[in-house]
């Protein structure tokens, strides 16, 4: 099992970063994490914890949201990357699947997928082959390939976003809520895809996910983020056994899973950090 | 010190026309200062203010300069003129608008503070028609004359007059408006090509002039049957059409070219001394001459005022009297180094409009100069005076003005 202690294998390292939006809103208050090569690392945490922000900080998309990394550093393969552009990073092999799909509405599904291959130089045939691969993963997309992405359903758009990222043949994929809005069997399927891409092609994953349950089953290592700080980290298997994680993220108390109908009072959120 | 603000425009859509005019205006006063030590011993200051042909900037310029003791304004914009008429009336400063502005201001009985000699748009229309009559040997009944005009207050000015003249002389008038800015005039010129009017008159300004002349060339309209008012007759207007613009005619109420003795002084005291306004490359052009003309009239009015007041340091009210009593003779023009440059003017309380004559000039593209194609032609006062009476009476009644000359 891979773990995230700093090794020569560390591909991506985030070192104590602080992120401020709009010059005034402090969102990340010192987040550090490292992603080992060939691993699947999960970033967990509640709404507004800062998962998306962390991923955007890594992929340099923050600037376009008027956010900035004011402290700390981000390195990829030991190189500082936070000053470049997102395109530079894609060329280095890091690609992000953004939260909320972000398809190109006016492009067809197929064109959307092809934009994923924008930076590739390995020729039409290889791209075509990958297109087929994506269609294999998501047969639904093949049916809708000629539709404008803006007119596809939420789940279909999510598939497009995933497929588009796969098309770029990256070394590392940052996945933001890949399972959101997908039907249950597709959620499993997506994670199976993640797993197989990871195992067969050695692609590294950093995924932010609300669906802690699945995420911890597939990930090797996990970080738990709360209010802009990492509050806990450890190998996924250990996290899964942690009683707090169990209670708050997996919805299991000692008696096993409770029915949603039976949760009678709103939970007082227990926080590691008040 | 005498202050004559120069409300000019060297930017915006009409910059190309504003620049030579402003240069001529400034240079003439510079000449007076450098050569004669000003007027009657008082130096003249011409604080320049950029209006960009924009009425609001015009107001700003007016307000910002009037406090400096301005003696007269010459904004070179009909729009700004209309704005300033009430303001100068309230402030007691002369508004001098040679060849533009409010035509009926020629009636001094109503417009005490406004002068527009030597000629106004209506004079221009009349002069152009007279020239055509001359060309046609005295009879133009049944002829077709088209007016291509800037679709604005300015461009519409001559229509009334031309309609009257059409009645009188029996020609057929058609009018073709061109919208600002006038980049596209295909429709108008196709119509001209079809209707084959005998003459085309033009009341244009800015890019409209250039395009019209180019289009006239394109349809091979005989250029010597194409006559522009004085604001459609600068070197700028004919230049883009190149050689084929030769023969195009335009009116002017003053001479142009470098042949006047004053240019020797101007060269010596202004240009060679490095005191020329702007880039100094406009000297002698049509609009430069016009700017100079305006400056010359203002300076003569000031001289008259000094003479009447018996002091050199005249104020705005005295300068107005100077304008009203201006008596510019041929001899005086000769003295100024501008022989036959302009028509003599004898103003009076009633007459703020001057003789109303103009000459026709014709463009020679080879020599790149305007040649005189007629002598002074006087406008048809019989037709114009009633029109002026009518319009100024309307203004007088709207504003409760009684005859100011009694």
């Amino acid at each position, binding site marked *: 099992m891979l773990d995230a202690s700093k090794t020569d294998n560390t591909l991506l390292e985030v070192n104590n970063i602080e992120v401020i939006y709009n010059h005034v809103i402090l969102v990340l208050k010192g987040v550090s994490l490292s992603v080992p090569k060939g691993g699947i690392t999960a970033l967990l945490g509640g709404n507004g914890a800062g998962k998306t922000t962390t991923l955007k900080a890594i992929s340099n998309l923050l600037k376009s949201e008027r956010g900035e990394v004011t402290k700390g550093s981000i390195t990829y393969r030991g190189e500082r990357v936070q000053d470049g552009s997102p395109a530079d990073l894609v060329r280095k092999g890091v690609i992000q699947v953004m939260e909320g799909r972000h398809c190109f509405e006016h492009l067809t599904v197929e064109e959307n997928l092809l934009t994923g291959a924008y930076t590739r130089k390995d020729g039409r045939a290889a791209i075509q082959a990958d297109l087929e691969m994506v269609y294999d993963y998501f047969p639904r997309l093949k049916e809708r390939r000629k539709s404008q992405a803006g007119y596809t359903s939420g789940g279909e758009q999510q598939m497009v976003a995933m497929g588009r990222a796969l098309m770029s043949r990256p070394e590392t994929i940052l996945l933001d809520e890949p399972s959101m809005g997908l039907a249950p069997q597709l959620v499993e399927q997506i994670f199976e895809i993640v797993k197989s891409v990871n195992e067969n092609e050695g692609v590294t994953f950093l995924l932010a996910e609300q669906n802690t349950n699945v995420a911890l089953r597939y990930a090797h290592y996990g970080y738990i983020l709360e209010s802009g700080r990492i509050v806990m980290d450890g190998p996924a298997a250990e996290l899964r056994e942690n009683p707090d994680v169990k209670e708050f993220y997996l919805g299991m108390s000692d008696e096993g899973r409770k029915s949603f109908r039976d949760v009678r009072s709103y939970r007082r959120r227990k926080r590691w950090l008040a | 010190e005498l202050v004559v603000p120069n409300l000019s425009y060297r930017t915006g859509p009409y910059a190309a026309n504003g620049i030579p005019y402003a240069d001529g205006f400034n240079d003439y006063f510079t000449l007076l200062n450098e050569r004669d030590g000003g007027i009657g011993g008082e130096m003249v200051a011409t604080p320049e*203010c950029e209006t960009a042909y924009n009425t609001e900037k015009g107001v700003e310029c007016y307000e910002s300069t009037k406090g400096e003791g301005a003696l007269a304004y010459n904004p070179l914009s009909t729009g700004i003129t209309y704005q300033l008429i009430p303001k100068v009336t309230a402030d007691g400063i002369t508004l001098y608008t040679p060849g533009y502005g409010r035509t009926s201001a020629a009636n001094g009985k109503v417009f005490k503070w406004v002068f527009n000699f030597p000629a106004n748009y209506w004079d221009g229309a009349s002069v152009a028609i007279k020239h055509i009559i001359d060309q046609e040997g005295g009879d133009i009944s049944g002829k077709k004359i088209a007016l291509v005009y800037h679709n604005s207050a300015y461009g*519409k000015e001559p229509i009334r007059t031309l309609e009257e003249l059409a009645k009188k002389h029996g020609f057929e008038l058609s009018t073709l408006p061109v919208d600002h800015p006038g980049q596209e005039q295909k429709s108008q010129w196709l119509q001209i090509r079809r209707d084959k009017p005998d003459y085309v008159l033009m009341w244009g300004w800015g890019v409209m002039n250039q395009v019209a002349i180019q289009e006239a060339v394109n349809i091979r309209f005989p250029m010597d049957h194409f006559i522009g008012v004085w604001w459609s007759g600068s070197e700028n207007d004919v230049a883009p059409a190149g050689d084929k613009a030769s023969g195009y005619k335009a009116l002017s109420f003053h001479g142009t070219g470098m042949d006047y003795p004053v240019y020797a002084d101007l060269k010596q005291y202004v240009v060679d001394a490095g005191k020329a306004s702007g880039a100094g490359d406009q000297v002698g052009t049509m609009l430069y001459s016009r700017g100079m003309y305006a400056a010359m009239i203002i300076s003569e009015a000031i001289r008259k005022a000094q003479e009447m007041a018996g002091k050199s340091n005249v104020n705005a009210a005295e300068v107005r009297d100077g304008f009203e009593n201006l008596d510019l003779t041929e001899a005086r023009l000769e003295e100024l180094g501008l022989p036959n440059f302009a028509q003599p003017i004898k103003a009076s309380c009633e007459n703020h409009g001057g003789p109303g004559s103009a000459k026709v000039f014709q463009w020679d593209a080879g020599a790149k100069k305007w040649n005189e194609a007629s002598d002074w032609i006087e406008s048809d006062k019989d037709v114009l005076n009633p029109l002026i009476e009518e319009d100024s009476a309307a203004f007088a009644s709207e*504003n409760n003005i009684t005859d100011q000359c009694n």
Partner: protein
Amino acid sequence: MFYREAGDFKTSYREDSQTFPIKFDRLRYYAVLAVAFGIVPLFINDYWANAVAVPFLIYAIAAIGLNILVGYAGQVSLGTGGFMAVGAYAVYKLMTAFPDINIFFHVIIAGFITAAVGVIFGLPSLRIKGFYLAVATLAAQFFLVWLFNKVPWFYNYSASGQINAPERTVFGVFVTGAQTSAMAKYMFCLVVLTLVALVARNLTRGTVGRKWMAIRDMDIAAEIIGVNPLTTKLSAFAVSSFFIGIAGALFFAVYLGAAEVGEAFGIQKSFLILFMVIIGGLGSIFGSFAGAAFLVLLPVFLKNVLVGTLGWPTDLAAHIELMIVGGLIVAFLIAEPHGLAQLWRVAKEKLRLWPFPH
């Protein structure tokens, strides 16, 4: 700490929906009003009134009007010049046709007439959106200008096609015409502006304002939660044109005194007012003031510095002025895309946190 929010608790919704919920803001607001009504009139002269104050007040009215349409309701319009012309010609016709009625009412009625015209030209907004709509509103601009230029009835058949404002008084004081004092002009416009700003504020803080904003942010969703797009968009056009018409009326009658439609109300005017709204801040009444102030004052200021102080030739100064204005617009947008109003808000937020950031 310069700026206090803490300790300023609200105990009722009434207090909470005040225009300036923070006491410090409220005080400053009263101070500004006091200065504007009590002190400025004492010192104002022709130059300040005609070159700065009056155009600022009138443009602020127009900018508030346009801001309602663009900033609140999200319908970009480039027809402002044309609508101002409607106001101007309406007030001119009213002033000459009913000389005995107080000009104040003429101005208001001119506003209503403009509102009606605005509604007609607002109809396409039901189908057309975004920049398409913006360009489509140019049809209004060009058509109205053409109409006022072409039909002599509008300018009372005057020879030149110019309209001249006759002299009118309010409480025996001239507010239009040559004899108007700087103070009278200023006060008249200031009173109208104050009323306009108040009404605009009332409209934007309540249901109507929320409907507009809902349509702006997501028209489909707005419709699904119960906003009728037809009435909402048209009401925005009506209210906006009402204010713009008032601005046009004042612009002609009080400020210029004479106008020609193509020149005074041409397309540049539409753009100018749109610039004010965007630079000031979309969806902000304060922004309308800031934008108007910025675009009225900056050129005057630059002119005075470049020509007056540095003594540059006017043309060079004018060109460089364009460069500076353009450069500043871009710089402001980069610094804060949501306009001066937002810049001000962020500055306040920073001040509030000062000296302990975060």
